[in-house]
Protein backbone atom coordinates (compact mmCIF):
# COMPACT_ATOMS: atom_id res chain seq x y z
CA UNK A 1 0.00 0.00 0.00
CA UNK A 2 1.30 3.44 -0.87
CA UNK A 3 0.11 6.77 0.40
CA UNK A 4 1.52 9.94 -1.12
CA UNK A 5 1.85 13.10 0.96
CA UNK A 6 2.45 16.69 -0.06
CA UNK A 7 6.17 17.44 -0.20
CA UNK A 8 6.77 19.99 2.55
CA UNK A 9 10.58 19.97 2.13
CA UNK A 10 13.11 17.44 3.36
CA UNK A 11 13.17 18.65 6.91
CA UNK A 12 9.40 18.52 7.30
CA UNK A 13 9.25 15.15 5.57
CA UNK A 14 11.69 13.63 8.05
CA UNK A 15 9.51 14.80 10.90
CA UNK A 16 6.37 13.08 9.67
CA UNK A 17 5.73 10.34 12.18
CA UNK A 18 4.86 7.13 10.41
CA UNK A 19 3.49 4.04 12.06
CA UNK A 20 3.19 0.55 10.71
CA UNK A 21 -0.16 -1.11 11.33
CA UNK A 22 -1.54 -4.54 10.50
CA UNK A 23 -5.22 -5.04 9.97
CA UNK A 24 -7.60 -7.06 7.95
CA UNK A 25 -10.16 -5.66 5.53
CA UNK A 26 -12.94 -7.86 4.16
CA UNK A 27 -10.89 -10.89 5.22
CA UNK A 28 -7.64 -9.81 3.54
CA UNK A 29 -4.64 -9.11 5.72
CA UNK A 30 -2.89 -5.79 5.14
CA UNK A 31 0.13 -3.91 6.40
CA UNK A 32 0.17 -0.13 6.09
CA UNK A 33 2.65 2.59 6.92
CA UNK A 34 0.62 5.65 7.76
CA UNK A 35 0.67 9.00 9.45
CA UNK A 36 -1.31 8.84 12.71
CA UNK A 37 -3.59 11.65 11.57
CA UNK A 38 -4.82 9.62 8.61
CA UNK A 39 -8.53 8.94 9.01
CA UNK A 40 -9.91 5.44 8.58
CA UNK A 41 -12.11 6.59 5.69
CA UNK A 42 -8.99 7.68 3.79
CA UNK A 43 -7.04 4.54 4.60
CA UNK A 44 -9.90 2.59 3.05
CA UNK A 45 -10.55 4.83 0.06
CA UNK A 46 -7.09 6.05 -0.90
CA UNK A 47 -4.83 3.50 0.76
CA UNK A 48 -6.62 0.24 0.08
CA UNK A 49 -8.47 1.71 -2.92
CA UNK A 50 -11.94 0.57 -1.92
CA UNK A 51 -14.19 3.47 -2.87
CA UNK A 52 -17.50 1.96 -1.79
CA UNK A 53 -17.06 3.68 1.56
CA UNK A 54 -18.30 7.19 0.88
CA UNK A 55 -17.21 10.43 2.39
CA UNK A 56 -20.27 12.61 2.80
CA UNK A 57 -20.45 15.33 5.41
CA UNK A 58 -17.00 14.66 6.92
CA UNK A 59 -18.41 16.00 10.20
CA UNK A 60 -19.72 12.85 11.95
CA UNK A 61 -23.29 13.52 10.89
CA UNK A 62 -24.30 11.63 7.78
CA UNK A 63 -23.06 8.06 8.17
CA UNK A 64 -22.14 7.59 4.48
CA UNK A 65 -18.68 6.47 5.67
CA UNK A 66 -20.05 3.75 7.98
CA UNK A 67 -17.96 0.58 8.14
CA UNK A 68 -17.72 -2.26 10.61
CA UNK A 69 -14.70 -2.49 12.91
CA UNK A 70 -14.68 -5.85 14.70
CA UNK A 71 -18.35 -6.12 13.79
CA UNK A 72 -19.40 -2.75 15.18
CA UNK A 73 -20.79 -0.03 12.92
CA UNK A 74 -18.76 3.16 13.22
CA UNK A 75 -18.20 6.36 11.25
CA UNK A 76 -14.85 5.96 9.52
CA UNK A 77 -14.40 9.73 9.09
CA UNK A 78 -14.24 9.96 12.89
CA UNK A 79 -11.75 7.23 13.69
CA UNK A 80 -8.00 7.40 13.23
CA UNK A 81 -6.67 4.74 10.89
CA UNK A 82 -3.97 3.77 13.43
CA UNK A 83 -6.76 2.64 15.72
CA UNK A 84 -7.60 -0.36 13.50
CA UNK A 85 -4.19 -1.89 14.20
CA UNK A 86 -4.91 -5.55 14.89
CA UNK A 87 -8.58 -5.23 13.99
CA UNK A 88 -10.95 -6.46 11.28
CA UNK A 89 -12.62 -3.92 9.01
CA UNK A 90 -15.64 -4.74 6.84
CA UNK A 91 -16.73 -2.42 4.03
CA UNK A 92 -19.59 -2.70 1.55
CA UNK A 93 -17.24 -4.54 -0.81
CA UNK A 94 -17.03 -7.30 1.80
CA UNK A 95 -20.78 -7.99 1.85
CA UNK A 96 -21.29 -9.85 -1.43
CA UNK A 97 -19.90 -13.30 -2.22
CA UNK A 98 -17.99 -14.11 -5.41
CA UNK A 99 -21.07 -14.20 -7.60
CA UNK A 100 -24.09 -13.41 -5.51
CA UNK A 101 -25.33 -10.41 -3.63
CA UNK A 102 -25.65 -10.36 0.13
CA UNK A 103 -29.31 -10.59 1.22
CA UNK A 104 -29.10 -6.96 2.39
CA UNK A 105 -28.02 -5.91 -1.11
CA UNK A 106 -30.76 -8.05 -2.61
CA UNK A 107 -33.24 -6.35 -0.31
CA UNK A 108 -32.19 -2.91 -1.53
CA UNK A 109 -32.68 -4.11 -5.12
CA UNK A 110 -36.04 -5.77 -4.46
CA UNK A 111 -37.52 -2.92 -2.44
CA UNK A 112 -35.95 -0.04 -4.39
CA UNK A 113 -33.92 0.95 -1.34
CA UNK A 114 -31.69 3.38 -3.21
CA UNK A 115 -32.15 6.40 -5.40
CA UNK A 116 -28.85 8.24 -5.90
CA UNK A 117 -27.06 5.52 -3.94
CA UNK A 118 -24.63 7.73 -2.05
CA UNK A 119 -25.84 6.77 1.42
CA UNK A 120 -26.40 3.12 0.48
CA UNK A 121 -23.09 1.54 1.56
CA UNK A 122 -23.38 3.12 5.01
CA UNK A 123 -27.03 2.12 5.30
CA UNK A 124 -26.15 -1.47 4.40
CA UNK A 125 -23.39 -1.76 6.99
CA UNK A 126 -25.48 -0.17 9.74
CA UNK A 127 -28.18 -2.68 8.75
CA UNK A 128 -25.69 -5.56 8.87
CA UNK A 129 -24.61 -4.62 12.39
CA UNK A 130 -28.28 -4.57 13.42
CA UNK A 131 -29.17 -7.91 11.82
CA UNK A 132 -26.08 -9.61 13.27
CA UNK A 133 -27.28 -8.56 16.72
CA UNK A 134 -31.03 -8.81 16.18
CA UNK A 135 -32.15 -11.13 13.37
CA UNK A 136 -35.85 -10.34 13.83
CA UNK A 137 -36.10 -6.55 14.18
CA UNK A 138 -39.32 -4.57 14.20
CA UNK A 139 -39.73 -1.61 11.87
CA UNK A 140 -39.03 0.60 14.88
CA UNK A 141 -35.79 -1.30 15.60
CA UNK A 142 -34.66 -0.75 12.00
CA UNK A 143 -35.47 2.97 12.05
CA UNK A 144 -33.64 3.34 15.36
CA UNK A 145 -30.57 1.44 14.11
CA UNK A 146 -30.40 3.55 10.94
CA UNK A 147 -30.94 6.85 12.74
CA UNK A 148 -27.26 7.75 12.37
CA UNK A 149 -27.41 7.47 8.57
CA UNK A 150 -28.89 10.25 6.46
CA UNK A 151 -30.47 9.80 3.02
CA UNK A 152 -30.65 13.12 1.17
CA UNK A 153 -33.06 11.60 -1.36
CA UNK A 154 -35.23 11.04 1.76
CA UNK A 155 -35.89 7.49 0.62
CA UNK A 156 -36.22 6.14 4.12
CA UNK A 157 -39.47 4.20 3.58
CA UNK A 158 -37.89 1.88 1.03
CA UNK A 159 -34.60 1.64 2.93
CA UNK A 160 -36.49 0.36 5.97
CA UNK A 161 -38.48 -2.06 3.78
CA UNK A 162 -35.21 -3.29 2.23
CA UNK A 163 -33.71 -4.10 5.62
CA UNK A 164 -36.87 -5.89 6.75
CA UNK A 165 -36.84 -7.85 3.48
CA UNK A 166 -33.22 -8.85 4.14
CA UNK A 167 -34.00 -9.84 7.72
CA UNK A 168 -36.75 -12.16 6.50
CA UNK A 169 -34.52 -13.74 3.87
CA UNK A 170 -31.67 -14.22 6.34
CA UNK A 171 -34.04 -15.86 8.82
CA UNK A 172 -35.35 -18.18 6.11
CA UNK A 173 -31.79 -19.16 5.19
CA UNK A 174 -30.71 -19.71 8.79
Amino acid at each position, binding site marked *: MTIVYDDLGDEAASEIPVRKIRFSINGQKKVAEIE*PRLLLADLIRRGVGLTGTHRGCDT*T*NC*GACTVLVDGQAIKSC*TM*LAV*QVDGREVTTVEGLAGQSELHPIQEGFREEHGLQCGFCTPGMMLAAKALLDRNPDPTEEDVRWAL*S*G*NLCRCTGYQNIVKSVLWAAEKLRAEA
Partner: protein
Amino acid sequence: MYPPRFRYEAPHSLDEAIGLLHDGGDYVKVLAGGQSLVPLMKLRFASPEMIVDINNVPGLAYHRADPDGSLHIGALCRHADLEHSDLLKGTQPTMAAAAPLIADPLVRNRGTLVGSLCHADPQGDWASVVLALGGSVVAQGPRGKRAIPLAGFVTGPFQNVLEPDEIAIEAVVPPAKGARSGGYLKLERRVGDFATVGVAVAVETSGDTVVRAGIALTGVGASTIGATEAAAALAGKPLTAESIAQAADLAAAAAQPKTDHRGSAEYKRHMVTVFVKRILGSPSTGAATTERAA
Protein backbone atom coordinates in the same frame (compact mmCIF):
# COMPACT_ATOMS: atom_id res chain seq x y z
CA MET B 1 -10.58 17.46 6.42
CA TYR B 2 -7.46 16.37 8.23
CA PRO B 3 -6.37 16.86 11.81
CA PRO B 4 -3.08 18.71 12.19
CA ARG B 5 -0.01 16.53 12.72
CA PHE B 6 0.48 15.07 16.16
CA ARG B 7 2.55 12.47 17.95
CA TYR B 8 0.50 9.34 18.61
CA GLU B 9 1.02 7.00 21.52
CA ALA B 10 -1.11 4.00 22.42
CA PRO B 11 0.12 2.79 25.83
CA HIS B 12 -0.84 -0.58 27.28
CA SER B 13 -1.07 0.50 30.92
CA LEU B 14 -2.48 3.37 32.92
CA ASP B 15 0.92 4.17 34.47
CA GLU B 16 2.46 4.40 31.03
CA ALA B 17 -0.38 6.68 29.88
CA ILE B 18 0.03 8.97 32.89
CA GLY B 19 3.79 9.06 32.30
CA LEU B 20 3.20 10.18 28.73
CA LEU B 21 0.85 12.92 29.93
CA HIS B 22 3.36 14.01 32.57
CA ASP B 23 6.33 14.20 30.22
CA GLY B 24 4.51 14.84 27.01
CA GLY B 25 4.57 18.60 26.68
CA ASP B 26 2.13 21.44 26.91
CA TYR B 27 -0.78 20.16 24.90
CA VAL B 28 -1.58 16.48 25.20
CA LYS B 29 -5.05 15.04 24.79
CA VAL B 30 -6.37 11.66 25.89
CA LEU B 31 -8.28 9.79 23.18
CA ALA B 32 -11.02 7.38 24.25
CA GLY B 33 -14.01 7.33 21.89
CA GLY B 34 -12.82 10.32 19.91
CA GLN B 35 -16.31 11.28 18.79
CA SER B 36 -15.85 14.88 19.92
CA LEU B 37 -12.05 15.17 19.85
CA VAL B 38 -11.50 13.92 16.29
CA PRO B 39 -14.12 16.29 14.78
CA LEU B 40 -12.62 19.19 16.78
CA MET B 41 -9.16 18.34 15.46
CA LYS B 42 -10.45 18.09 11.90
CA LEU B 43 -11.99 21.56 12.27
CA ARG B 44 -8.69 22.75 13.82
CA PHE B 45 -10.44 23.88 16.97
CA ALA B 46 -8.05 21.53 18.77
CA SER B 47 -4.44 20.97 17.73
CA PRO B 48 -2.80 18.80 20.38
CA GLU B 49 0.90 18.02 20.07
CA MET B 50 0.33 14.50 21.26
CA ILE B 51 -2.56 12.07 21.46
CA VAL B 52 -2.52 9.40 24.15
CA ASP B 53 -4.92 6.74 22.92
CA ILE B 54 -6.10 4.76 25.96
CA ASN B 55 -8.07 2.17 23.98
CA ASN B 56 -5.37 -0.47 24.59
CA VAL B 57 -5.30 0.10 28.35
CA PRO B 58 -6.93 -2.95 29.95
CA GLY B 59 -9.55 -2.77 32.69
CA LEU B 60 -11.35 0.45 31.77
CA ALA B 61 -14.27 -0.91 29.73
CA TYR B 62 -16.67 -1.63 32.56
CA HIS B 63 -19.74 -0.44 34.32
CA ARG B 64 -20.71 -2.15 37.52
CA ALA B 65 -22.58 -1.69 40.77
CA ASP B 66 -20.55 -2.15 43.93
CA PRO B 67 -22.03 -3.89 46.99
CA ASP B 68 -22.70 -0.48 48.58
CA GLY B 69 -24.96 0.39 45.64
CA SER B 70 -22.62 2.88 43.97
CA LEU B 71 -22.34 2.70 40.18
CA HIS B 72 -18.91 2.84 38.53
CA ILE B 73 -18.42 3.59 34.84
CA GLY B 74 -14.95 3.06 33.39
CA ALA B 75 -13.28 5.42 30.95
CA LEU B 76 -13.76 3.00 28.03
CA CYS B 77 -17.42 2.19 28.71
CA ARG B 78 -19.20 3.22 25.50
CA HIS B 79 -22.60 4.91 25.29
CA ALA B 80 -23.88 1.75 23.55
CA ASP B 81 -22.82 -0.40 26.53
CA LEU B 82 -24.98 1.79 28.74
CA GLU B 83 -27.86 1.86 26.25
CA HIS B 84 -28.04 -1.95 26.28
CA SER B 85 -27.31 -2.35 29.99
CA ASP B 86 -29.80 -4.37 32.02
CA LEU B 87 -28.10 -3.06 35.17
CA LEU B 88 -29.04 0.52 34.25
CA LYS B 89 -32.56 -0.40 33.17
CA GLY B 90 -33.16 -1.98 36.56
CA THR B 91 -31.46 0.51 38.84
CA GLN B 92 -30.78 3.85 37.15
CA PRO B 93 -33.89 5.32 35.47
CA THR B 94 -32.30 8.69 34.68
CA MET B 95 -29.24 7.13 33.05
CA ALA B 96 -31.26 4.47 31.24
CA ALA B 97 -33.46 7.22 29.79
CA ALA B 98 -30.50 9.29 28.63
CA ALA B 99 -28.32 6.56 27.08
CA PRO B 100 -30.40 6.01 23.91
CA LEU B 101 -30.63 9.77 23.36
CA ILE B 102 -26.87 10.37 23.09
CA ALA B 103 -25.95 11.34 19.52
CA ASP B 104 -26.79 8.45 17.13
CA PRO B 105 -26.19 4.67 17.20
CA LEU B 106 -22.88 4.86 15.30
CA VAL B 107 -21.44 7.51 17.61
CA ARG B 108 -22.74 5.56 20.62
CA ASN B 109 -20.65 2.57 19.54
CA ARG B 110 -17.45 4.62 20.03
CA GLY B 111 -18.11 7.50 22.39
CA THR B 112 -17.75 7.19 26.14
CA LEU B 113 -19.57 8.65 29.14
CA VAL B 114 -16.36 9.67 30.89
CA GLY B 115 -15.09 11.32 27.71
CA SER B 116 -18.32 13.23 27.42
CA LEU B 117 -17.95 14.54 30.99
CA CYS B 118 -14.36 15.63 30.30
CA HIS B 119 -15.32 17.30 27.04
CA ALA B 120 -17.71 19.48 29.10
CA ASP B 121 -19.81 20.60 26.17
CA PRO B 122 -22.71 22.70 27.54
CA GLN B 123 -24.89 20.61 25.24
CA GLY B 124 -23.48 17.28 26.42
CA ASP B 125 -26.19 15.11 27.91
CA TRP B 126 -24.20 12.99 30.37
CA ALA B 127 -22.91 15.91 32.42
CA SER B 128 -26.49 16.87 33.31
CA VAL B 129 -27.40 13.30 34.15
CA VAL B 130 -24.37 12.72 36.38
CA LEU B 131 -24.80 16.14 37.99
CA ALA B 132 -28.46 15.42 38.79
CA LEU B 133 -27.39 12.11 40.37
CA GLY B 134 -24.74 13.81 42.52
CA GLY B 135 -21.95 11.87 40.78
CA SER B 136 -18.25 12.44 40.55
CA VAL B 137 -15.23 11.82 38.34
CA VAL B 138 -12.21 9.87 39.56
CA ALA B 139 -8.95 11.25 38.21
CA GLN B 140 -5.61 9.46 38.37
CA GLY B 141 -2.24 11.14 38.02
CA PRO B 142 1.35 10.82 39.23
CA ARG B 143 0.25 11.95 42.70
CA GLY B 144 -2.46 9.30 42.99
CA LYS B 145 -6.22 9.26 42.67
CA ARG B 146 -8.81 11.85 43.61
CA ALA B 147 -12.58 11.99 43.31
CA ILE B 148 -14.00 15.26 41.99
CA PRO B 149 -17.74 15.95 42.39
CA LEU B 150 -19.21 16.79 39.01
CA ALA B 151 -20.53 20.09 40.36
CA GLY B 152 -16.88 21.16 40.70
CA PHE B 153 -15.48 19.24 37.75
CA VAL B 154 -16.96 21.21 34.89
CA THR B 155 -15.89 24.82 35.22
CA GLY B 156 -17.20 26.25 31.98
CA PRO B 157 -17.75 25.50 28.33
CA PHE B 158 -15.26 22.78 27.32
CA GLN B 159 -13.37 23.28 30.58
CA ASN B 160 -12.71 20.92 33.46
CA VAL B 161 -10.41 20.87 36.47
CA LEU B 162 -8.19 17.95 35.42
CA GLU B 163 -4.48 18.63 35.74
CA PRO B 164 -2.52 18.18 32.51
CA ASP B 165 -1.07 14.87 33.78
CA GLU B 166 -4.34 13.44 35.10
CA ILE B 167 -6.63 10.97 33.36
CA ALA B 168 -10.31 10.62 34.25
CA ILE B 169 -10.49 6.87 34.83
CA GLU B 170 -14.09 6.49 35.93
CA ALA B 171 -17.35 8.19 36.81
CA VAL B 172 -19.13 7.26 40.03
CA VAL B 173 -22.79 7.61 40.93
CA PRO B 174 -23.29 7.33 44.69
CA PRO B 175 -25.70 4.82 46.24
CA ALA B 176 -29.33 5.86 46.40
CA LYS B 177 -30.79 6.95 49.74
CA GLY B 178 -34.16 5.57 48.71
CA ALA B 179 -36.00 4.21 45.69
CA ARG B 180 -34.76 5.86 42.52
CA SER B 181 -37.03 7.43 39.94
CA GLY B 182 -36.62 10.13 37.36
CA GLY B 183 -35.72 10.47 33.72
CA TYR B 184 -34.06 12.45 30.99
CA LEU B 185 -35.83 14.29 28.22
CA LYS B 186 -34.16 15.95 25.27
CA LEU B 187 -35.58 18.23 22.66
CA GLU B 188 -33.68 17.88 19.41
CA ARG B 189 -34.42 18.96 15.88
CA ARG B 190 -33.48 15.56 14.53
CA VAL B 191 -31.69 12.43 15.71
CA GLY B 192 -28.06 13.07 16.48
CA ASP B 193 -28.39 16.82 16.84
CA PHE B 194 -27.24 18.53 19.98
CA ALA B 195 -29.89 19.23 22.59
CA THR B 196 -32.03 22.31 22.09
CA VAL B 197 -33.03 21.65 25.69
CA GLY B 198 -32.27 18.66 27.88
CA VAL B 199 -33.53 18.04 31.40
CA ALA B 200 -32.26 15.39 33.83
CA VAL B 201 -34.25 14.63 36.94
CA ALA B 202 -33.18 12.14 39.61
CA VAL B 203 -35.35 11.56 42.66
CA GLU B 204 -34.84 9.21 45.60
CA THR B 205 -37.84 8.48 47.81
CA SER B 206 -38.25 6.70 51.10
CA GLY B 207 -41.90 5.81 51.60
CA ASP B 208 -43.65 8.82 50.10
CA THR B 209 -40.97 11.28 51.07
CA VAL B 210 -38.37 12.59 48.66
CA VAL B 211 -35.04 12.15 50.47
CA ARG B 212 -32.85 13.42 47.65
CA ALA B 213 -33.52 15.18 44.37
CA GLY B 214 -31.32 16.46 41.59
CA ILE B 215 -32.26 18.46 38.51
CA ALA B 216 -29.79 19.54 35.84
CA LEU B 217 -30.17 21.27 32.49
CA THR B 218 -28.47 20.72 29.13
CA GLY B 219 -28.05 23.28 26.37
CA VAL B 220 -29.60 26.27 28.13
CA GLY B 221 -26.47 28.05 29.33
CA ALA B 222 -22.73 28.40 28.86
CA SER B 223 -22.24 25.30 30.95
CA THR B 224 -24.23 22.42 32.38
CA ILE B 225 -26.60 23.95 34.92
CA GLY B 226 -27.45 22.37 38.26
CA ALA B 227 -30.93 23.57 39.21
CA THR B 228 -30.27 23.22 42.93
CA GLU B 229 -33.13 25.40 44.14
CA ALA B 230 -35.56 23.45 42.01
CA ALA B 231 -34.26 20.19 43.47
CA ALA B 232 -34.47 21.59 47.01
CA ALA B 233 -38.15 22.37 46.44
CA LEU B 234 -38.80 18.65 46.10
CA ALA B 235 -36.80 17.37 49.05
CA GLY B 236 -38.21 16.39 52.42
CA LYS B 237 -41.83 15.94 51.34
CA PRO B 238 -43.98 13.79 49.09
CA LEU B 239 -44.17 14.59 45.39
CA THR B 240 -47.32 16.60 44.82
CA ALA B 241 -48.68 18.59 41.91
CA GLU B 242 -47.72 21.74 43.83
CA SER B 243 -44.12 20.71 44.56
CA ILE B 244 -43.66 19.53 40.98
CA ALA B 245 -45.00 22.83 39.61
CA GLN B 246 -42.74 24.77 41.95
CA ALA B 247 -39.68 22.74 40.94
CA ALA B 248 -40.54 23.18 37.26
CA ASP B 249 -40.76 26.97 37.68
CA LEU B 250 -37.50 27.14 39.66
CA ALA B 251 -35.72 24.99 37.06
CA ALA B 252 -36.89 27.32 34.31
CA ALA B 253 -35.65 30.28 36.37
CA ALA B 254 -32.22 28.61 36.67
CA ALA B 255 -31.93 28.24 32.88
CA GLN B 256 -29.92 30.86 31.00
CA PRO B 257 -31.01 30.14 27.44
CA LYS B 258 -30.04 32.20 24.42
CA THR B 259 -32.07 32.65 21.28
CA ASP B 260 -30.42 30.85 18.37
CA HIS B 261 -31.23 28.73 15.34
CA ARG B 262 -32.58 26.02 17.62
CA GLY B 263 -35.23 28.23 19.19
CA SER B 264 -35.96 31.36 21.15
CA ALA B 265 -34.84 31.81 24.74
CA GLU B 266 -38.48 32.00 25.81
CA TYR B 267 -39.31 28.74 24.08
CA LYS B 268 -36.32 26.93 25.59
CA ARG B 269 -37.16 28.18 29.08
CA HIS B 270 -40.74 27.02 28.66
CA MET B 271 -39.54 23.58 27.56
CA VAL B 272 -37.56 23.24 30.79
CA THR B 273 -40.82 23.64 32.73
CA VAL B 274 -42.60 21.17 30.49
CA PHE B 275 -39.86 18.55 30.78
CA VAL B 276 -39.56 18.76 34.58
CA LYS B 277 -43.32 18.30 34.88
CA ARG B 278 -43.38 15.52 32.32
CA ILE B 279 -40.61 13.53 34.02
CA LEU B 280 -41.96 14.02 37.54
CA GLY B 281 -45.50 13.37 36.38
CA SER B 282 -44.49 9.89 35.28
CA PRO B 283 -41.41 9.05 37.35
CA SER B 284 -39.83 5.62 36.97
CA THR B 285 -41.89 4.78 33.91
CA GLY B 286 -38.94 4.24 31.64
CA ALA B 287 -40.97 4.06 28.44
CA ALA B 288 -42.49 7.46 28.95
CA THR B 289 -39.28 9.17 29.97
CA THR B 290 -37.26 7.87 27.04
CA GLU B 291 -39.86 9.17 24.63
CA ARG B 292 -38.06 11.26 22.08
CA ALA B 293 -39.33 14.81 22.05
CA ALA B 294 -40.22 15.97 18.56
